[in-house]
């Protein structure tokens, strides 16, 4: 494994699964959230940007209408000054329209003026109009055009300013950019020139003398109007190239518009350039007709202007819709991805948890030895493979455990069988040797040999008994079976047996049975005998002279058995070892004491099985004292009921005589 990955491995090793998931999720989520947030901010910005462009469109629409009316006003005043008295009502209706339009713009300005930062410029337009309206009656043909030109320029520059401040000027798409350019700059400019051309043309018509400078001005205006119109048309071409649908939408109208506007120049040429010998009434007619003609052309052109504005606004709307749609799609995808991630991670986590839980349960089953720990796994991943490997190990272990349990069982069975087979002949040997001795028909020498044979046979039997007992205690096969025990009888009987053993080594054995001991106790008589026999034989073994004390007494609710000897004693350092299996203080091969070292180990275990304690006090050279404390266990059994019980239980016992607990004789 490459070195650089090890910190990550160490980190992952220390985290729990839930923490691992969270960490990985967070590591993914941080950049994704950043990117997503950045995207949302950008989209929001783009939407706001385009929305502000649309505000510009909203603001400009009434403003351009005002622009148109002001141009019309110029022409009307110009016509009036050129002798068209009938234009007074026209002028008044235009002024009224302008006033109304100013209110319309005012409303728009109230809501958008501050956003687009044009309130001040709008204020100037209003002031200028108010002044112009005031001075209208005193205008001369020259001042008329000058003051109106100034106002128109003001409005035109306000239109441009709205375009600038509403981002329109910065529009990012080619089609909308060129439409914007037309709407904000070139088309108003062209319209302004055509409007001036109209007014100047009317003024020229009113002049009796058509001077060269008049002509020059008209020619220049014509040129300017034409060139602005051409520029505007070119803008459309660029937009069409980028967005062909615009061509179908606008091409016809824009061409018509160009023709209409050009017709203003044409009609000016045809009207003005004629020799000025017409009657004054005719002149008025001419002016009127020219005014009407050009006004219609300009109105149509302004309608076209609105059409272009609508097309552009539509594009902006489409663009904003696109942004909103894109944002919605991204958000929905992000939400779905997030939900899917959480869903899958939850599944992942629960799957891992399930595998681990199954593993833990299986492990617990193995530990508690309740089956093989077989796993039922739905998962097929690496963890499940590990679990399956664990399962195989568990199966192996379980097999080994069963084999070992079976082996122990076989050993126990073997021991039980063997001990029975060994003891049967030994017991017969002991019986017959006793009978030989009891017969009194042998001489002293034969009796001695029979006694030695008997003693050795008994030792062999007791060794076999001890080994069997140890094995049964170790495997839990030995049970303590308490029944009514008469301690004085048992003590006397033990004393009788053990005294003989002591006498063989010229030792004395002293028996002391406490008067306060109850006559009968509920104890396992054979095990008590075994304990005392083992302790006393042990004492005899390690004592060369003096008396061994065998004491049975009562201390509160405890039954005390004490065996004290004046023997060699046990060193302090070995005292804790003497109850171990096969232990002897002197374990050298030349040791002076016989025995397998099983007696005390059995005593200790029997005492524990009987819920008692064993204690040793010993001093090297002075002797040892073993003290055993057992529960007193007073019998609850009443001998007076014996016969009645016998009749009651008799039938039942007969029917259950084949039970497991029936003794095998």
């Amino acid at each position, binding site marked *: 494994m490459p070195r650089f990955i090890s910190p990550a491995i160490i980190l992952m090793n220390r985290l729990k699964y839930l923490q691992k998931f969270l960490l990985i999720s967070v590591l993914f989520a941080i950049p994704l959230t950043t990117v997503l947030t950045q995207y949302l901010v950008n989209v929001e910005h783009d939407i706001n940007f385009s929305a502000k462009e649309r505000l510009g469109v909203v603001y400009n629409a009434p403003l351009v209408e005002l622009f148109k009316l002001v141009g019309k006003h110029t022409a009307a005043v110009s016509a009036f000054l050129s002798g068209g008295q009938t234009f007074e009502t026209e002028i008044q209706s235009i002024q009224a329209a302008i006033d109304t339009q100013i209110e319309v713009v005012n409303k728009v300005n109230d809501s958008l003026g501050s956003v687009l930062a044009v309130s001040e410029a709008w204020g100037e337009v209003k002031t200028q109009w108010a002044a112009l309206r005031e001075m209208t009656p005193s205008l001369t043909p020259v001042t008329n055009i000058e003051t109106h030109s100034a106002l128109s320029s003001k409005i035109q520059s306000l239109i441009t300013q709205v375009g600038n401040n509403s981002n329109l000027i910065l529009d990012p798409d080619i089609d909308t950019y060129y439409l914007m350019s037309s709407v904000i700059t070139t088309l108003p400019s062209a319209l302004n020139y055509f409007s001036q051309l109209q007014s100047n043309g009317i003024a020229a018509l009113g002049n009796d003398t058509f001077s060269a400078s008049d002509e020059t001005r008209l020619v220049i205006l014509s040129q300017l109007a034409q060139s602005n119109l051409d520029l505007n048309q070119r803008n459309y071409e660029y937009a069409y190239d980028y967005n062909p649908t615009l061509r179908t939408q606008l091409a016809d109208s824009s061409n018509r518009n160009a023709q209409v506007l050009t017709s203003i120049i044409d009609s000016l040429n045809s009207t003005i350039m004629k020799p000025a010998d017409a009657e004054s009434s005719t002149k008025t007619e001419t002016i009127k007709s020219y005014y009407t003609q050009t006004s219609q052309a300009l109105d149509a052109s302004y309608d076209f202007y609105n059409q272009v504005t609508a097309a552009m606004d539509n594009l902006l709307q489409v663009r904003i819709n696109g942004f909103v749609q894109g944002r919605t799609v991204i958000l929905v995808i992000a939400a779905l991805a997030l939900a899917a991630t959480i869903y899958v991670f939850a599944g992942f986590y629960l799957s891992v948890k399930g595998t681990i839980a199954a593993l833990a349960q299986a492990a617990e089953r193995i530990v508690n030895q309740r089956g093989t720990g077989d796993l039922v796994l739905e998962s097929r991943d690496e963890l499940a493979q590990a679990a399956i490997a664990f399962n195989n190990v568990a199966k192996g272990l379980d097999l080994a455990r069963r084999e070992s349990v079976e082996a122990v069982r076989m050993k126990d069975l073997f021991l039980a069988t063997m001990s029975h087979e060994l003891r049967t002949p030994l017991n017969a040997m002991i019986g*017959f040797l006793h009978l030989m001795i009891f017969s009194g028909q042998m001489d002293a020498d034969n009796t001695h040999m029979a006694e030695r044979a008997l003693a050795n046979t008994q030792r062999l039997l007791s060794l076999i008994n001890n080994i069997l007992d140890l094995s049964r205690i170790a495997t839990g096969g030995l049970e303590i079976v308490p*029944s009514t025990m008469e301690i004085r009888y048992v003590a006397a009987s033990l004393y009788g047996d053990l005294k003989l053993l002591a006498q063989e080594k010229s030792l004395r054995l002293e028996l002391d049975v406490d008067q306060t001991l109850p006559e009968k106790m509920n104890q396992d008589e054979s095990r008590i005998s075994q304990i005392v026999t083992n302790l006393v034989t042990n004492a005899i073994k390690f004592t060369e002279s003096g008396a061994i004390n065998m004491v049975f007494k009562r201390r509160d609710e405890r039954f005390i058995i004490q065996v004290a000897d004046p023997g060699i004693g046990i060193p302090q350092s070995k005292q804790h070892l003497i109850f171990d299996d096969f232990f002897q203080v002197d374990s050298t091969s030349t040791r002076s004491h016989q025995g397998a070292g099983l007696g005390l180990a059995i005593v200790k275990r029997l005492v524990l099985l009987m819920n008692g304690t064993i204690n040793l006090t010993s001093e090297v050279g002075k002797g040892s004292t073993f003290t055993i404390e057992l529960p007193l266990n007073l019998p609850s059994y009443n001998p007076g009921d014996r016969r009645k019980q016998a009749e009651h239980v008799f039938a039942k016992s*007969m029917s259950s005589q084949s039970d497991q607990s029936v*003794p095998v*004789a």
Partner: protein
Amino acid sequence: MISIPRAFVDWEVLVVDDERDNLEIARRLLVMAGAKVTTSSTGKDALEQIKSNPTRYKFILSDLSMPEMDGWELLYEIKQEPRTQDIPVIALTAHAMIGDRERGIAAGFHNYITKPLDPTKFIRQLINLLKDLPEYASLLDAV
């Protein structure tokens, strides 16, 4: 040297056991105690002996585990028959388990002695068990 008390002089005693050596040791010990011993190696044979002369035996020693008719069945048959039901029957058991003594006594055994027989104690054990019965009170003198 252990002495065998001659407590059962001229007593007729029946010993039942399928193991020949056990039977012989018990017989010889009882003979040393003065008894006249009849032996049976099957329960069936023992039952015939008892039925043929119900008052003959002062007590019966019976092994528990035997082929065909075991000690429990033999006891059942003895207790069924009014003429024999008062004969004390002492069980010879190889192993004692929890409740065996109580159950054995409840079933009608007078008492029990665990095997293997200890020749040095056997007669004293018998005396000890039988002396509770009033008709055998004289056994106390023998101890």
